[in-house]
């Protein structure tokens, strides 16, 4: 099973029926699989905070949701994470491509990478860093944890995890 297939199978296993995505080269494969999965409604967003709003609505409408996004957007989603997702106590798995880590060819990406974990820690978002391909085995437990505690949870996936991009 490819890493992308395993991720989508876990989303389905945890009854996630709506996924919003903002693209990243590293996530292209998983976005394609999400789009092709019949039990998931795939709704591309134009901005990550917009996507978090859609996810909050879907949750209140009775459907579990998730967001797929790049770490460079963490800064613009702080207010939404704090005053919507956390304030109203809603679960939100965030599958995040962790650009700017080992293997990164674009220097500018490292600038945001050094702030990524600090920003998530500052707002108390439980954060998991998938670095080796085998780390994908943790996703199942991370998703269970997210819906157990009703929190936004960050899953950072770096270039080594994706075996480059």
């Amino acid at each position, binding site marked *: 099973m490819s890493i992308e297939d395993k991720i989508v199978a876990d989303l389905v296993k945890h009854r996630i*029926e*709506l996924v919003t995505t903002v693209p990243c080269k590293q996530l292209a494969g998983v976005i394609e699989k999400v789009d092709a999965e019949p039990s998931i*409604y795939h*709704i*591309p*967003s*134009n*901005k990550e*905070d*917009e*996507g*978090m*709003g*859609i*996810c*909050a*609505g*879907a*949750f*209140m*409408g*009775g*459907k579990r*949701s998730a967001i797929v996004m790049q770490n460079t957007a963490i800064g613009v989603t702080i*207010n*939404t994470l*704090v*005053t*919507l997702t956390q*304030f*109203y*106590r*809603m679960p939100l798995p965030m599958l995040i491509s962790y650009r700017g880590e080992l293997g990164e060819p674009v220097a500018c990406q490292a600038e945001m990478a050094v702030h990524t974990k600090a920003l998530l820690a500052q707002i108390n978002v439980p954060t998991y860093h998938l670095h080796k391909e085998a780390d994908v085995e943790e996703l199942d437990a991370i998703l269970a944890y997210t819906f157990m505690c009703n929190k936004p949870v960050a899953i950072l996936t770096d270039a080594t995890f994706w075996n480059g991009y």
Partner: protein
Amino acid sequence: MIRSEVIKSLLPVFADHHVVCNIGLPSQELHLMGDKPTNFYMLGTMGLSSSIGLGVALAQKEKVISIDGDGSVLTNFGTLPTIANNVADNFILLIIDNGSYGSTGDQPTYAGMKTSLTAVATACGCENVIECQAEEAPATLQKAIDSNKMTVIVCKCESGNIKVPVITMDPVVIRDRFMKSLEARNA
């Protein structure tokens, strides 16, 4: 008519429909004049009323009305193409366009100048976009509800505010009663 008068005139049309209400004064006015479990009040995140409402509409069958403002739509412009391309016929976006940022002291917005939100929504691909004047709001909203078609209403009104208390209800309570009401209605 100012926004609070528009909201007051719409209360009988909202009836028992689920309403997602924009942050600040619109939520405070709706809360003061007609608080119900079917109302979801936004206490933070300016701009996301339309996104939250669309999410609720896509996830279940009941009708959802998002009350938005011109300033808030301007802050989340990306929402209009998303709405246009993900049609939910149980969703109505009601933009109360008073040409100003009401909750922050009536600073003028671009929607009150050269920018037409009606034209923008249409250009984004939204199919049923209706502009109306404040006095026509109840009839326009009722027609949109009866049409069973996803509709964007841009309701033009005057700028101005009344004094209203802030909402002190706990956000989890707001969310929980809204969810339970939706769940019961979808059962």
